[in-house]
């Protein structure tokens, strides 16, 4: 009987098994190739600029297509400043929203709000950008920026901080738009993270008489600590790489921003604005080098985020 099974001819179509597995493996490898391709093409494309300017590329601020002198410090600082400002504004609100939805919100309301938040996370960035340009910027210039500039005491730090052309297109409004954009995304992921906390853990804390604040502060947040940092990094990664919304509203000025209300640029916005109109070989190379810098920064941030979230998933 066993012999009969062992000597039975292989099933029809079994010859295709290794081919199918090979095709699947090939597709998985294509993914790696795509990522490797991004790095390699950016490195090759940006190499002329990097080798020509050397370290000066990262620390100088002149960006002049006429004299062919390029320094990336302006966009690098602009990217970091807008992203961290956006994170600082979005993080407390996102945490508040997700905690409210998981812990306090009446059940019939929690589900629709959560779905709405997730849907809003999918709205394309160009929509946020247009809103920023046509609605937020004029409002901000008239009702926030001008009064602040007028009332800043001369010679104080506020005067320096609020200096700028009052048209609403500046570092601060760009950060604000970024914050609004990453807010639903972060809130949605935070909510999923909080839902992974086992009910027993939460209930035992309530059982010894903790208030909800103490349950969240001493039990829930420590429980998801690693993952929460991962979510923050994911939000930061989004803000760092966001292109269209920022391009609309940051003012697109090269060089270091001199104040909170000064126009500036980010790595992504500079590439988006100038790449198709790049005049010389060196201009294109410098823009590609900006892309490489952006890749290195975001890859680092996203890799840390994923490592932290992975650990959470398997704990």
């Amino acid at each position, binding site marked *: 009987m066993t012999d009969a099974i062992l000597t039975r001819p292989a099933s029809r179509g079994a010859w295709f098994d290794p081919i199918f597995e090979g095709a699947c493996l090939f*597709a998985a490898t294509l993914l790696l190739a795509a990522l490797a391709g991004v790095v390699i093409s950016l490195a090759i494309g940006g190499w002329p600029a990097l080798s020509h300017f050397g370290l000066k590329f990262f620390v100088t601020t002149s960006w002049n297509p006429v004299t062919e002198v390029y320094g990336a410090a302006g966009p690098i600082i602009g990217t970091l400043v807008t992203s961290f400002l956006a994170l600082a504004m979005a993080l407390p609100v996102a945490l508040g929203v997700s905690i409210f939805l998981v812990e306090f919100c009446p059940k019939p309301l929690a589900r629709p709000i959560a779905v709405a938040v997730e849907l809003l996370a999918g709205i394309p960035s160009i929509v946020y950008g247009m809103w920023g340009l046509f609605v937020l910027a004029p409002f901000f210039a008239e009702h926030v920026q001008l009064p602040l500039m007028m009332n800043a005491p001369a010679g104080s730090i506020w005067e320096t901080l609020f200096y700028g052309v009052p048209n609403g297109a500046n570092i601060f409004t760009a950060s604000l738009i970024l914050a609004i954009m990453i807010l639903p995304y972060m809130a949605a992921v935070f909510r999923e993270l909080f839902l992974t906390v086992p009910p027993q853990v939460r209930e035992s804390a309530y059982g010894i008489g903790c*208030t909800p604040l103490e349950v969240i502060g001493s039990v829930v947040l420590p429980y998801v600590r690693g993952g929460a940092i991962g979510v923050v990094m994911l939000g930061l990664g989004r803000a760092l790489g966001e292109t269209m919304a920022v391009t609309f509203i940051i003012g697109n000025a090269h060089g270091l921003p001199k104040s909170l209300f000064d126009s500036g640029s980010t790595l992504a916005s500079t590439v988006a604005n100038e790449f198709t109109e790049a005049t010389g070989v060196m201009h294109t190379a410098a823009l590609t080098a900006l892309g490489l810098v952006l890749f290195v920064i975001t890859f680092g941030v996203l890799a840390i985020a994923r490592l932290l979230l992975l650990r959470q998933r398997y704990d």
Partner: protein
Amino acid sequence: MVSRPTLRALANTLFVAACGLATILALTALGFILLSLVKQGVGGLDANIFTKDTPAPGSVGGLRNAIEGSLMMCALAMAMAVGVGVLAGTWLAEYGGASPYGHVVRFLNDVLLAAPSILVGLFVYELVVRPLHGFSGFAGAVALALLAVPVVTRTTEDILRLQPDALREAGAALGTPRWVTIRQIIWRGAGGGLLTGGLLAFARISGETAPLLFTALNNQFLNHDLSKPTASLPAVIFQYALSAYDDWRRLAWAGALLIALSVLAINIIGRVIAARESHRP
């Protein structure tokens, strides 16, 4: 002297209020954005949008060429992305997901999932546009496909892992070759979930602007040839919103509303399908 329990209760009340306020604040801000989008966009939404091409400033026009270009590029991108993504996800779920290489692939796929889309545009520029000496709708589709593949891969793996092993064992017990089991049983059982993954990926790429700027570029005219520069809705919105002409800006708002509505609709359809799947006995 306030007693400790009172203090704790007070701190807690403040905290709950702060969380509620944050929610109200967030929903108000986002609702305000949608409201002004509808208010500004709905005036421009007429039959011309779908029947006329992008106009010169001052003349009547619509967004037909942009809508068509977007649909063509997204369709081609999805065809490529679904092919690669479903196979890659299948490999992760059914074959090598537990191997060290599988962990590397999954990790880098997660990174790609959130990578800045403009970098994909730069990559495709070097990969397709520069060697072929020209912007093309085809290059745009490749860029969009690269953005969709990680989404499809991720959802495919997740949904295939949900299929019970009993199904795989049943297939094996009948002597069915593994690929037939996967194709006839696993994929079929996961059909709704796979469809949702595809829809989510489609929603993600249909609003992407940055990767199209220097791959598909733009085109003022109706164009069915993807080897030429091709207009897309997001690129036209970008160009028109930053222009100085009122009628172009009106079209940009209408286009933005159109994109936001379609993305919302696709996402909702995807969710409905996923919800129906999970309630299936």
